[in-house]
């Protein structure tokens, strides 16, 4: 396990991560594993993150070493698509029992690997560590090594048990496993000056195939996609690519950066969500490949293709623009896609009323601010009721979010569209953008909304639950408006730091009392941001607003 904690430390020390670079030495050591909040957390674990990142490798047998929960409750539930093998959709687990917990699960793991190789003969087996075997000390590295020697096949340990941290960390640990055990272990049959790696793309709903034809047309070969529709051999020989595109914001930045370091493969961070982003990414790919030796005429062909595709896409979208006039979108999504989707929606003429940035890094948030303007309405921790109220106040006409929050919108009889992993539509590239706009239009103008909003025959006007809820909210607001003391109390009681349970008022008082100007100062005085540190951004904003005021007070 010492190697695991070393790996985690290494992952935390990511120079490619802007957030990390801004940290002090001590903070960096503490890492970015958020102290998850008991009773208030909802995300996946590190194992989940590792599995999400690697499972789209289609011809690999993904074996989960753990009790039934880890695989039995979750297998075959990802929307990634494969152009070849379907082995990745087969659920393999050691399903360890009480005896294994007492005597150790290594033998069962070894036998499981043997069974898989005998029955399914995959090019590689990936073994995922989970909490229980990690606790009892099962050494999966050793088992994988023994299996590798015995069966003469790559057996790759993925050391990312759930309890080491959140999903995001799991993504990176998965990347480390690829770097350590897979990438650079095989050689490609041939190389071309047009060989590109795509990193952090999972081919959800087959969206990679919305872009691949364009690359095909330009003669650009996707040497390896990590990991959507990827194959083991491609990833193993991906160190011979000429350039790389990192798609999924920060999820696998360690892979991109270390491949640059080790193999000299330059990378850029880009997105295929939205028309302009797609064009920029294509240009950047062409530029990098040319820099690495591809003929310069590639850029001319790329520009021609971009011009053609943009014209087609704009023409297709143009007819929706009048229909979207004045329509507002509430966007609730994790960090991964926030910034790219924002750009995409604005291109279609929609107005953004807010975006949840729960999982975004500070850099992501800045990017959203940049894209949406300085007064971007960031929604940090919207409760279901607030979300409903926002929709109901018609401040939003449609909500775009991941699968889990959809029911709030649907129960509020508001149009909703899925833009996260379990969605059924692909939204990448030019065709994807047009598709997204089509889907928003379909959702917005579906006559079902008028139907479901009709009162039941036994309902009195204004006496349904919706109006009661709204009346209640209004009454509360009016009461507060009439009572400035109470209003101030409510404002001050807003919780800023969830981990240490510190309210806004306490922070404000501390800033004034001790004339604080830094997050560190606030932390020392109030303990706020002493837990996961996620609220540091909010404290900075408070400081920005407060500090001139407190200085003024101090000056008096």
């Amino acid at each position, binding site marked *: 396990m010492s190697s695991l904690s070393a790996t985690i430390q290494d992952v935390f020390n990511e120079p490619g991560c802007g957030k990390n670079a801004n940290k002090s030495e001590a903070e960096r050591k503490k890492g970015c594993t958020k102290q998850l909040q008991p009773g208030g957390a909802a995300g996946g674990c590190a194992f*989940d993150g590792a599995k999400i990142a690697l499972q789209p490798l289609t011809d690999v047998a993904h074996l989960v070493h*753990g009790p039934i929960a880890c695989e039995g409750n979750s297998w075959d539930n990802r929307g990634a698509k494969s152009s070849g093998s379907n082995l990745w959709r087969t659920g393999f687990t050691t399903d360890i029992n009480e005896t294994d917990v007492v005597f150790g699960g290594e033998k069962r793991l070894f036998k499981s690997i043997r069974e*898989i190789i005998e029955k399914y003969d995959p090019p590689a087996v990936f073994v995922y560590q989970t909490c229980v075997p990690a606790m009892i000390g099962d050494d999966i590295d050793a088992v994988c090594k023994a299996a590798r020697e015995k069966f003469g096949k790559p057996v790759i340990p993925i050391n990312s048990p759930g309890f080491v941290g959140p999903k995001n960390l799991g993504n990176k640990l998965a990347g480390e496993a690829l770097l350590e055990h897979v990438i650079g272990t095989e050689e490609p049959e041939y190389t071309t000056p047009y060989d590109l790696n795509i990193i952090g793309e999972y081919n959800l709903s087959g969206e990679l195939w919305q872009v691949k034809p364009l690359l095909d047309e330009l003669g650009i070969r996707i040497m390896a996609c990590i990991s959507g529709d990827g194959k083991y051999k491609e990833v193993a020989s991906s160190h011979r690519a000429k350039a790389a595109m990192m798609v999924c914001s920060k999820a696998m930045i360690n892979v991109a950066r270390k491949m640059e370091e080790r193999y000299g493969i330059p990378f850029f961070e880009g997105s295929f969500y939205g028309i302009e982003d797609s064009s920029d990414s294509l240009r950047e790919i062409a530029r990098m490949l040319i820099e690495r030796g591809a003929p310069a005429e590639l850029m001319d062909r790329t520009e021609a293709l971009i011009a053609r595709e943009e014209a087609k896409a704009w023409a297709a979208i143009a007819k929706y623009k009048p229909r979207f006039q004045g329509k507002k979108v509430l966007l609730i999504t994790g960090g991964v896609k926030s910034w790219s989707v924002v750009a995409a929606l604005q291109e279609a003429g929609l107005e953004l009323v807010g975006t949840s940035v729960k999982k975004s890094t500070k850099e992501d948030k800045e990017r959203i601010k940049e894209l949406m303007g300085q007064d971007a309405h960031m929604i940090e921790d919207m409760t279901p009721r607030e979300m409903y109220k926002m929709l109901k106040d018609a401040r939003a006409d449609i909500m775009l979010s991941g699968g889990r929050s959809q029911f709030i919108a649907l129960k509020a009889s508001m149009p909703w569209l899925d833009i996260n992993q379990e969605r059924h539509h692909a939204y990448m590239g030019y065709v994807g953008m047009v598709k997204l706009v089509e889907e928003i239009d379909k959702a917005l103008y579906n006559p079902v909304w008028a139907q479901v909003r009709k009162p039941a025959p036994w309902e009195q006007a204004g006496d349904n639950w919706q109006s009661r809820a709204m009346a209640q909210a209004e009454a509360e607001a009016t009461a507060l408006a009439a009572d400035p003391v109470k209003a101030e109390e409510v404002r001050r009681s807003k919780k800023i730091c969830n981990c240490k349970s510190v309210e806004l008022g306490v922070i404000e008082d501390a800033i004034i009392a001790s004339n604080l100007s830094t997050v560190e100062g606030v932390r020392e005085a109030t303990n706020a941001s002493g837990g996961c540190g996620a609220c540091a951004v909010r404290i900075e904003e408070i400081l920005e607003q407060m500090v001139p005021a407190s200085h003024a007070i101090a000056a008096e």
Partner: protein
Amino acid sequence: MATVTVSKKACSVNPLKMSQPIGGALAFMGLRGAMPLLHGSQGCTSFGLVLFTRHFKEAIPMQTTAMSEVATVLGGYENVEQAVLNIYNRTKPEIIGICSTGVTETKGDDVDGYIKLIREKHAAVAHLPIVYVSTPDFKDAFQDGWEKTVTRIVETMVDAPKSAARRDPAKINVLPGCHLTPGDLDELRTILEDFGLEPTFLPDLAGSLDGHIPDDFTPTTIGGVGVEEISTMGQAGWTIAIGEQMRRAAEALQQKTGVPFRLFERLCGLEANDALMAFLTEISDRPAPMKYRRQRGQLVDAMLDGHFHIGGRKLAVGAEPDLLNEIGGLLTEMGAQLLVAVTTTQSPVLERLPTEEVLIGDLEDLENLAKVKDCDLMVTHSHGRQAASRLKIPFFRMGIPMFDRLGGGHQLMVGYRGARDLIFAISNLLMADHEENHEPTPDSWRDGVGASHAATSH
């Protein structure tokens, strides 16, 4: 009489089984104002949450103690304490239901002790109902988690009545197994009410996860049986338990309150419902309403119409024991042969199944056996989709999870009407399969008697 065997494989491939803690969490979801809390790392909850959300197409209340590696080693008291307080402050639940997981069971956290300490330390939660169930992931299956949780709720939340005189013969307790859908519970409620009885369901998923539009937004469950109502279950005249898995809970209830119980191993099929009708007639002292006499006739007719399609079918079923018993039983009664039966956990019903062998195994076993035995109808949850498509045989989805079709929560099986509709649904599937894949061609019989796989064999 079936023999029960356990798969010898080291590696489970394409699991049929789901874990105990989420079975327990689902049971808590049938309580009003409940917040199920898994004591484990946050993935334990997250996987369950996604699974139920995709099955019920509803927002699912479920929380985690978010155990980190360090907390796991040092013990989870602080995490449980923080979780309980956070849930209490944020969501004002009427009850918190805690299930342990593999992580915290490996360490051996004394959660009952923790709860006692938390109550002593924090006056606000001193009287908040908190029920804890031990449900390690590395033991048993989903159905067992449900069983243990309902039993635990009975043990801790039902009041022992002061005297038997206060018993109300019109009040009926219903303890449904987790193989019944919210739709099944609604159907049962209607039946019981038609006999003039007032049922209390524990758990009552029909109140909470039937897909209705709620009266208000709560982050906890939005319906289900209330804490008060559970405490008065000792005043009922009878308890009806459905599925062998509910025996322990029914016994616990009887032991605590003296309420007698009748266990219905099955409630899908003609005989099973005849037994229910006879029992309800007896305890309510009312004749079966006309409606059910007509429905019985409809079921008989459906069985006659359906047996042309279901008769002779070679059936492969993968389900938890009680669901396997229901569907395997119904189809066998209509002439199908239950050739392959795969299940998740031990149960006394298994050896009574109308088949030779029951295997505790996975969907790889189901697929391989179905192939060997040339089965031509597969029944299991949505995860059977890959196997069925490889085998190219008709596939009927039953059980949790059903994530790739709508209406899983309303699929009806109990009552005369439930069995009737189920027979229609399965027969229609078989007819459609015949039209698509087995219409005769000029070559169908060319090889004469003895040739296998004639196109018209079904």
